[in-house]
């Protein structure tokens, strides 16, 4: 290479990463399957700021004046709604994708702060049930591990239609992650790739969904809240249809939502960001006069208390964290840098959850690796993290003069960029305008 690097000109279109991917595809003949979530830059909550109280509004005293964080989910039809102490839940992640220790740690951490965890594609493990005082049981297209006994043990049922990382897509648990136990739970042989269907096997469309939800209610004697989880795409209409079908709770996962194993092209190119999705979902609920009657849980890129506060300010009732929860357990920790390097990556970049060789012992079924994660210590780290972001959300809410985080409202926020202003329908900071203001709202859904 020339010693004068200033003469080298990298293509903006074919940068080194793009060239490397074309070369990899040419060599391997296979698309990239990875975990984590979207890595591309896109409009997000970072592009919004709060208008703290000043002369026209007065704030609440930090550490002195109460700012509530509790939330009740499933008040529409369920005899036994779920009450959470914090508006931050743990997203659905499967045993199979995650180790038993990781699932236990999630349960312990969530319990400590008084929130719920969620099963995933693979069914409910006794450890998970035992360590989660409030457990949401996912009802997925594959129905791996699905059985009515576990359905009755659940505190809520989440009918999964899609997830933000891959709306419209199924899943694949690669053979190397199929232990004896995972295979048995899924009624499949060991060592084979286990496909998860993209559609439910016994219903299609919103009218069928209504009947399916009623079936689940009948089986569980109308006790349990029924959530419907959707990946963010045609969010306004999907939310309306899910509400019409009888959902108690909508779980909305934006395209930044994490995944255990999905094609990179899917993660980065399908779905819409959480920012416009949450606004569309709340609009749909408000137009049906169902806002706060059907609760909204938002996920996809929730990292901090600021993200929590912003999602709630749009009108969500709670948020859900997946990727951030795994990071709190120890995912991508510098402690394992040497092992990450051996895998050709580095702490902070690791995303090969599908391969089963996770140095942090989280996305693996290999005992030597999963033993690295102490579920008690992992649970403690998760609880610390959840408490921290709850305190952060309260800090912002108090600054805006709110005695409960649910009292935050869109009017408390402004946008820093044109894109965020347009998607959030919030004014650009210092103006009373956002792109598209005054045009027919329906045309932008």
């Amino acid at each position, binding site marked *: 290479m020339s010693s004068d690097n200033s003469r080298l000109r990298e293509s903006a279109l074919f940068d080194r990463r793009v060239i490397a991917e074309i070369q990899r595809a040419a060599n*391997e003949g296979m698309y990239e399957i990875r975990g984590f979530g979207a890595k591309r830059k896109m409009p997000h909550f970072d592009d919004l700021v709060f208008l703290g109280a000043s002369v026209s509004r007065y704030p609440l005293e930090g550490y002195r004046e109460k700012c509530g964080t509790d939330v009740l989910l499933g008040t529409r039809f369920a005899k036994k709604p779920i009450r959470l102490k914090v508006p931050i839940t743990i997203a659905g992640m499967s045993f199979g994708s995650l180790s038993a220790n990781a699932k236990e740690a999630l349960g312990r951490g969530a319990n400590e702060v008084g929130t719920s965890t969620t099963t995933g594609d693979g069914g409910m493990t006794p450890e998970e049930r035992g360590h989660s005082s409030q457990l949401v049981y996912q009802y997925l297209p594959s129905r791996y591990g699905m*059985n*009515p006994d576990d359905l009755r043990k659940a505190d809520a049922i989440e009918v999964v239609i899609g997830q933000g990382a891959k709306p419209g897509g199924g899943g694949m648990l690669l053979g190397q992650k199929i232990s004896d136990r995972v295979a048995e739970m899924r009624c499949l*042989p060991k060592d*084979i790739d286990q496909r998860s269907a993209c559609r439910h*096997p016994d219903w299609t469309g919103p009218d069928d969904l209504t*009947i399916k939800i009623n079936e689940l209610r009948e*089986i569980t004697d109308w006790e349990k809240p029924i959530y419907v989880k959707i990946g963010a795409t045609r969010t306004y209409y999907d939310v309306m249809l899910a509400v019409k079908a009888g959902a108690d709770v909508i779980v909305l996962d934006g395209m930044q939502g994490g995944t255990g194993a999905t094609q990179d092209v899917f993660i980065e190119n399908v779905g819409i960001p959480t920012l416009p999705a949450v606004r569309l979902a709340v609009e749909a609920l408000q137009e049906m006069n169902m806002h706060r009657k059907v609760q909204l849980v938002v996920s996809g890129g929730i990292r901090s208390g600021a993200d929590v506060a912003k999602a709630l300010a749009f009108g969500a009732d709670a948020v859900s964290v997946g990727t951030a929860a795994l990071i709190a357990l120890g995912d991508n920790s510098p402690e394992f840098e040497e092992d990450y390097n051996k895998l050709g990556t580095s702490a902070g970049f690791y995303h090969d959850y599908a391969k089963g060789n996770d140095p942090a012992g989280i996305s693996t079924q290999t005992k030597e690796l999963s033993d690295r994660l102490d579920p008690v210590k992992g649970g403690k780290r998760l609880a610390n993290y959840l408490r921290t972001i709850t305190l952060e959300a309260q800090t912002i809410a108090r600054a805006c003069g709110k005695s409960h985080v649910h009292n935050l409202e869109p009017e408390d926020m402004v946008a820093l960029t044109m894109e965020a202003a347009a998607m959030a329908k919030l004014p650009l900071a210092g103006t009373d305008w956002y792109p598209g203001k005054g045009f027919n709202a329906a045309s932008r859904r």
Partner: protein
Amino acid sequence: METIDLAKTELRELNQQLHDLTADTDKTNWTVENPKGMHNVAVGLNVPVTVEINGHVGYYCAGMNQEATVIVNGSCSTGVAENMMSGLVHIKGNVSQSAGATGVGGLLLIDGNASSRCGISMKGIDIVVKGSVGHMSAFMGQKGNLVVCGDAGDALGDSLYEAHLYVKGVVKSLGADCIQKEMRDEHKKELGDLLEKAGITDHKVEDFTRYGSARELYNFKIDNVDAY
């Protein structure tokens, strides 16, 4: 004998009464009248009782059944006995699509025909259809047995895992990775036992053909790209 008339009693009350039964109940025989196409009749049963339904039912009749015997003197819509765990569900008429979907155990016996996707994602259930089945039956079938005394529609056993398929009549076409297989002694015994269990005496084991997975799609290979 307990009798519930759905023209006079809410479905919720029927299902609740059935759920309230304990394993040692003496109310072991139930009759349901006037279902009139109602959905979710007798779902989530959990004890060894017999429920006989006189008339046609809608979606998901006997869904997630455990231990109970459910007899329908009529036809069923979508998803009869979906995710059934054990027991017997016997349909005297025809059934719509996704019969026995994701079923884990027990016997689903259909005297008439079954529409498309019969036994989709089956996980251990035995399904015996005296008539024919529609397209994509046993799609992604993981475990269990599907016996078809009539014909099978297009793409039988598409993306099949380890479910065993036995068809007496004509198979219009086989789905991806599903092939005809040799009927060995253990399969003849398996099929014979199933026919006996279903009370079928007018079909001989020798007249059936076995189909199963070629197991070529078990692990993703780019060379199989045409099948994806």
